[in-house]
């Protein structure tokens, strides 16, 4: 069904409901992040390694975060981004409101099926290469709301997750540890993987 400017709100609701139903029925299994490349022993020559080092250094030092924060975990992220924990040290203090500028999405909060299509769309619109950190119990499994009919049981149903950070909510220190892990992961990437 097409949505036009003269569609009634009922039409729009129905369209949205169908989208959600579709997404829900098509994401019953967790998306696995292909991690084979992490242990890959690619025969690399010196030139490639140097290019990789330079690229990865740039990428890991400017992990710009998309602001897609859905629930309470956000407050720990806000605390992380302000002066006490200071993620400017990692070049991450620029929170982008447009997915075109962002290469990291930190899933701070419970995700409901109603929000799921939006988050998925934002992720799809982000520039390559992109990373996802699942933050908090809700980000990993749905947390205390896992049994609810309306809550997505873990962001990994719709996005490939790179790093999981447990906690409800995780302390900013835990988030920092997660970011450290992600930076290590970024370092291992080779541009040959595309």
């Amino acid at each position, binding site marked *: 069904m097409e*949505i*036009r*400017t003269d*569609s009634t709100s009922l039409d*729009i609701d129905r369209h949205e409901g169908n989208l959600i139903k579709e997404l829900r029925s098509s994401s019953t299994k967790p998306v696995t992040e292909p991690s084979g490349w992490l242990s890959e022993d690619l025969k690399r020559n010196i030139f490639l390694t140097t*290019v990789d080092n330079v*690229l990865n250094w740039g990428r890991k030092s400017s992990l710009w975060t998309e602001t*897609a924060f859905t629930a309470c975990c956000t407050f720990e992220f806000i605390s992380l981004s302000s002066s006490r924990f200071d993620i400017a040290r990692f070049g991450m203090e620029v929170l982008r409101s*447009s*997915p*075109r500028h962002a290469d990291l999405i930190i899933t701070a909060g419970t995700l409901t099926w109603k929000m799921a*299509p*939006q*988050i998925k*769309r*934002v992720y*799809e*619109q982000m520039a*390559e*290469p992109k990373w996802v950190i699942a933050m908090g119990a809700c980000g990993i499994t749905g947390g205390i709301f896992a049994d609810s009919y309306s809550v997505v049981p873990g962001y990994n149903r719709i996005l490939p997750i790179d790093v999981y950070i447990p906690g409800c909510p995780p302390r900013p220190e835990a988030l920092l540890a997660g970011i450290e892990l992600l930076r290590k992961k970024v370092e291992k990437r080779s*541009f040959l993987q*595309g």
Partner: protein
Amino acid sequence: MLSEFSLIALFILIVMGFATTLVLIPQALKKIGIVPSKPSEVKYEPYECGLETIGETWVQFKIRYYFYALLLITLDITVIFLYPWAVELKNLGSSSLGVIFSFIGILAVGYIYAWRKGALEWK
């Protein structure tokens, strides 16, 4: 006389060269394969906070917004001038009161003119 502006011409050239290089570098890197490129239909659609766009993305705004913006800027500038004046009021003495009132008076004439002309009405 004209040669005094040659530096500005040079500046413009440098700026244009810089801007073009910045645009071309990612394109070149994409060609070599260093910058990953995975285009998809969704990625090239307009970003509307994750929602699908309803109707046209490029819409025209009414020209009347321009008048409001213009009048607002004058108001803004008045405030910018008033603020340091208010802070220094004690030192400046009572004579500054007359000065600032004539300043506001000049602006008020413009405002009243715009008002009478109907610039504040939404048509």
